[in-house]
């Protein structure tokens, strides 16, 4: 099998889309209302060490995925348990992402189209992308990112007439609990889900700056998150932003350039689905790699289809309505944070100890030098 590598630029694009895609669809947690931008900054502060930890893991295990790391760090039994848990978690995220996007389309325009048709459309495209390999996924993400920057610039320009900066005030009026609760939600979704990117660790060539990939994508995502948050807040106002199920989409509905150019929300909704497909594809690759390792299948691509079908089946039964979906998203940090940060932290500590013990002691001559 020819191993498919991702370039640094494409790896950045994949991570960036994973973070920002979900954020643009679901918006910022609004626990701290107009002060919610502080939640984004706190999440950023926490994500710096977390990102460094992920990058360090990729560096400690060059050209290896997270499942190899589990086996190496936790031993055979621990590795199998870790692989099962993470594969199931990847399927759960895929199903959740598909639910988010399919529900979005059902709410905004496709009222009569059966849920399964929309969900299958997203999953099957993601399966095709996952089967095409990491390199194709990287190139696809880079193309999506260009579209994203263009769309964000258009959205900013076209909503500029509607900005009301009064909505940013009163500033610093929320309690720390509310601000921190927002940060925790952001850490779980979308930031924490980038743990899935470790499953693509074997596609990053040794020496291809893993620190650069993680840190730049987190920093750029945070900047865009802040800009999008301020734009949505200044356009929609606090009450509409709080009650809007999809705030970025709602803000895009206000966009107009005179009377000639308006209703860009249709284009933005297409972008949302592209981002959803990308994240689903990453999760499907992760789940397929885990399953292939468990089943001792050499090429993960041959198990992408069954994994995709499992994700589709799960997405059909996961939530009955949007209220259940958003209720689950509120509780999601309790389930996800141990897997997103706790397990990688344990993995990193063990990996550091193992690598330190394996490292040859410096010779006496070197010490004397």
């Amino acid at each position: 099998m020819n191993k498919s590598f991702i370039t640094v630029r494409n790896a950045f694009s994949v991570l960036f889309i994973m973070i920002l895609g979900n954020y643009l669809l679901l918006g910022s947690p609004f626990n701290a209302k107009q002060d919610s931008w502080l939640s984004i900054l706190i999440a950023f502060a926490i994500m710096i060490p977390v990102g460094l930890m992920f990058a360090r893991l990729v560096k400690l295990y060059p050209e290896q995925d997270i499942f190899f790391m589990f086996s190496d760090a936790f031993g055979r039994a621990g590795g199998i348990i870790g692989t099962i848990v993470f594969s199931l978690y990847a399927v759960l995220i895929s199903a959740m992402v598909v639910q988010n996007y399919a529900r979005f389309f059902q709410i905004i325009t496709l009222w009569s189209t059966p849920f399964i048709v929309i969900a299958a459309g997203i999953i099957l495209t993601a399966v095709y992308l996952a089967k095409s390999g990491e390199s194709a996924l990287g190139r696809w993400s880079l193309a999506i990112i260009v579209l994203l920057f263009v769309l964000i610039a258009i959205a900013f320009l076209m909503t500029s007439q509607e900005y009301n900066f009064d909505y940013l005030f009163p500033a610093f009026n929320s309690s720390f609990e509310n601000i921190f609760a927002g940060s925790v939600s952001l850490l779980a979704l979308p930031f924490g889900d980038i743990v899935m990117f470790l499953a693509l660790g074997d596609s990053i060539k040794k020496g291809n700056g893993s620190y650069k990939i993680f840190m730049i994508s987190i920093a750029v995502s945070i900047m865009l998150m802040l800009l999008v948050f301020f734009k949505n807040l200044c356009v929609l106002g606090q009450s509409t932003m709080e009650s809007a199920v999809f705030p970025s989409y709602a803000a895009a509905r206000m966009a107009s350039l005179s009377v000639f150019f308006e209703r860009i929300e249709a284009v933005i909704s297409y972008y949302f689905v592209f981002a959803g497909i990308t994240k689903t594809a990453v999760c499907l690759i992760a789940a397929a790699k885990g399953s292939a390792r468990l089943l001792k299948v050499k090429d993960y691509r041959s198990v992408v289809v069954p994994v995709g079908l499992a994700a589709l089946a799960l997405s059909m039964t996961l939530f009955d309505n949007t209220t259940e979906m958003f209720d689950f998203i509120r509780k999601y940090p309790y389930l996800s944070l141990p897997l997103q940060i706790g397990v990688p932290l344990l993995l990193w500590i063990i990996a550091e100890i193992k690598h330190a013990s394996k490292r040859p002691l410096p010779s006496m001559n070197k010490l004397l030098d």
Partner: protein
Amino acid sequence: MKTGIRLTSIAVSLAIICVLLTGCWDYKKIDDLTLVAGMAIDKASDDSGYKVSLEAIDFSMSVQENSVKTQIIQLEGTTIFDAFNKTKTQIVKELYFPDMQIICISSGIASDEGIANIIESCIRSTDIRESVYVIISRAESAEKIIKPGEGMSSVVSAEINELIDEIGNNVSSGKKSNLYKIYNQINDSADIVLPAFSVKEDSPVIDGMALIKDSRLVGYLDQEYAEYYQMAADILNNATFSFAIDESSSFNTSISITNNRSAISYDIKENEALRLSVNVSFDASVREVYSSADVDHAGGFEMFRRECEEHISKKIYELTDKSRQEYGVDVLGFANHIYRDAPEYWEQIKDRWETMLKEAEIFVDVDINFTNTSFIS
């Protein structure tokens, strides 16, 4: 061999796509839709719900007569969407709301039930755009506002939409009021100012400003205050307006305004009472002067400027005072300003705000910078 299999699978896939994916479940042809241009909401005849009148564009008649024709569809329901559903008994085509431009609410509903439920129902709907304008009818029914008069060939809702779009630009007429902005104000418990419309010679005309408190209509400010309200509320772009400076109307003038800027502020006095200030400044040019006073020399022009400033200050004071004393309405949004500037102080006074507003000292300062006197010196 491999290429053959590949080509066959592509051909089979394309055949399946052609047969199965000819259109999704939500595909709609324009012929099957009735475009709704505007909606008027009145009380139902038995007072137990709503009578909804929709101005719908009739494509069949429009094509035949080569001009846009509209028809009014009316139905009653316990809720607005109940009324929409009942239209299915009247028309076969599906109602299409994303192009709707105005929602007109009758004064009866606005004063008795309030507008909160209607606004929430509309904003919840993905069909109705959040940017649609909301107006209040001062005519005997909201339906009259959107009903085309004899010989009218245009879409009435589109005309009303254009009138509102021009607010702040030459047509002096209250305040723009999108659905989502009203929703924000209702949730913030803020007082709301909406354009009021009535019917004159079978055509809808802007007729002052409707004052909404606690989401209920409490009264109107007459059209004579519209320009002054726009100046004070900082929503005036360019406008030419005329006024009589003295009571006897022997000194009439018209001025064109640009670069209008206004700011509201507050001071807490020693006895904990409030002093609310409105500062307005703009550039202006003289258009007309009907007076025996000589404004063409420095002293006369200075007197003219002072007279204009005093007149505008007086009118802004009047509209603010009338709104607070007669209706308890904070027309310029001082409450919102205090909340955003000093949220702790607002928490202390919010329960006695209405009394404090009525007792507050109001100070209006207008500064006019006359840039020219048009073509003559």
